[in-house]
């Protein structure tokens, strides 16, 4: 799912100066969804998902755009978007490392992995490092408890991880860290 969307986004970014009134063609993709959803207000969460897939995150402009399109009060759109943990309001880093902290992974030491990555790259969980190279996230159970502890690096699910293997993994993509 994310694959095709990412590709579409990449294509759209190349020709950002498009026909859309905003000058940014990515809004076309949001519009397309809105039209299919017949601008119904209960489609707010779906629309925010589409917008986040397209833009990578939800900026204030995007939220205002969605609020106007669905004729919803801006405060309500902001309230809904911030309520749900999967929506993010800052651009993501080049690489993303998600550590599952579900119960099975917790019992098997997932907290140590989070701590180690966080310390090595001085990036608090849930945030992006200052140079924008790495976003460290935690997830509440990815449902692969048989493989605990689980780490998802740039979309690849990896089971039976430990502190060392995870740090090696991150270092391989991002660099030494420190």
């Amino acid at each position, binding site marked *: 799912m994310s694959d095709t969307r990412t590709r579409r986004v990449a294509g759209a970014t190349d020709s950002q100066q498009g026909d859309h009134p905003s000058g940014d063609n990515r809004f076309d993709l949001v519009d397309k969804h809105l039209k299919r959803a017949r601008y119904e207000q209960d489609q707010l969460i779906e629309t925010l998902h589409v917008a986040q897939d397209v833009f990578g995150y939800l900026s*204030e402009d995007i*939220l*205002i755009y969605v609020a106007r399109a669905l004729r919803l*009060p*801006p*405060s*309500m759109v*902001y*309230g809904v978007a*911030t*309520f749900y943990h999967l929506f993010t309001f800052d651009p993501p880093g080049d690489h993303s490392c998600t550590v599952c902290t579900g119960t099975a992974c917790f019992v098997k030491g997932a907290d140590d992995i989070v701590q180690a990555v966080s310390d090595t790259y001085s990036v608090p969980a849930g945030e992006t490092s200052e140079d924008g190279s790495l976003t460290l996230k935690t997830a509440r159970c990815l449902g692969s408890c048989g493989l605990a502890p689980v780490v998802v690096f740039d979309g690849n699910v990896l089971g039976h991880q430990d502190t060392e293997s995870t740090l090696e993994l991150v270092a391989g993509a991002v660099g030494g860290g420190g």
Partner: protein
Amino acid sequence: MRDTRPTVNISFDGVDYEGYVGESVLECARRNGVTIPSLCFLEGLSVWGGCRICVVEVAEGHRLRPACATQVTPDMEIKIETPRLRAYRKSVLELLFAEGNHVCAVCVSNGKCELQDMAVFSGMDHVRYDYQAPRREVDASHPKYVFDPNRCILCTRCVRVCDEIEGAHVWDISYRGEHAELITEMNRPWGDSLSCTWCGKCVAVCPTGSLAYEGRSIGEMEHDPVMIKRLAVARSRGEWLDPEGAI
């Protein structure tokens, strides 16, 4: 106006009263002069049920029920002043005081604050729990009003009045859990809001000193939550349409 609704017999702490079918326990108590402490409930607005101050024991059920959202039923035995309920009310109040930065001595609503009154009424004289001491900035950008989130208890009276009575929906809650906070529009300063009509209803209904008129000093802010009941009742009766029966 004589009430023609059918009645039921109920009791508050062992004393018998008459309640109307379809009436909430809280409404019934108030009508009969029985005190059930409450915070987020306000006559004229929809029921929110979030503060949990008004929970009462209903004899036949095991769970506590919010008086604001429970309808009276025949032979209901309602307990308000039991040791357990007193202890719970006190604890919930302590939690509210621990959550924000409530310093009565420097508050515009000192002496005229529903939260403060509640603490006095419940005998809450200290807070057992850690003060969370959040860092929150006062929003004084509005020309007429001031919003101090340090004193907000998230009762959502302002959110509801702005949406349901004024129809502007300037306010809403953002984020969730301990990070939940009151916002205007896109979490921008209130003064920049395009949808605010400056009607002041949110300020009128605030139970604490969180929303106040600009320029009020300590203890000078008096709220007017009853205004909403007047508005709601007048609106439901269409009294504006009747030149004879003007308010």
